[in-house]
């Protein structure tokens, strides 16, 4: 579930980055972060699948719920890191303008 949630978030972020005209929201940073985590969890899933075989797909509902909760928490952390990075780097100087008003 964590892998699925991260991959879906990475795809959505990449699509929004592709559509964005001015490229001033630093979505490339967010999508690279999510893709990096997705690749790493994918490798983890392969090793787990090699160990558990078909049992890998028969997880207990509580484990799946815990995994989904973890996935959402990971996504929240990624968004927090992205927004902090956006505010610190302030690519278009918008924060500076707002604060100096």
């Amino acid at each position: 579930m964590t892998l699925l949630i991260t991959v879906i978030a990475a795809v959505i972020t990449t699509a929004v980055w592709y559509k964005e005209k001015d490229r001033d929201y630093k979505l490339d940073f967010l999508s690279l972060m999510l893709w990096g985590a997705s690749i790493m969890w994918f490798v983890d899933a392969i090793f787990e699948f090699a160990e558990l075989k078909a049992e890998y797909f028969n997880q207990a509902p509580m484990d799946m719920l815990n995994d989904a909760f973890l996935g959402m928490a990971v996504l929240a952390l990624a968004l927090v890191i992205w927004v902090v990075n956006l505010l610190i780097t302030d690519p278009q100087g918008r924060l500076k303008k707002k604060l100096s008003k």
Partner: protein
Amino acid sequence: MACFLVSVAEAAVVKVMESSQLKKEVKLAESNELSEAVTSDVKIPLSRKLKWLSNLLLGGSVLLLFEHIWHGEIVPWFPFLTAMNDPADMAEMFKEMATVGVSMAVLVTIVWFAMCRVADKIVSGDSNEAKDL
């Protein structure tokens, strides 16, 4: 257990390479400013590509670090990794780093390499089209 540490180590090396490459590129741009504008093709600088790799590795590692904290494998006190308290767990941790951790770092690098090749093709395709016009 601590598989993401391999990616963190690679990211540190990449970050150092990125900053030294950036310095080189700035120097080169300053010395060749005029001639480059006339002769060179449009290319993605290596420092930018290395930044993509460091973002992939560091971003992924930070999120995996959070997952390890979630599962209680990392604690805020020494020795930080719970597996370090037991020799049997330690051996398992090193084994995991050598297998899962190295595979993660290798796959991220392969994906980055493919990404760079595709990006170079797209950019060089664009510049060739511009030349034809």
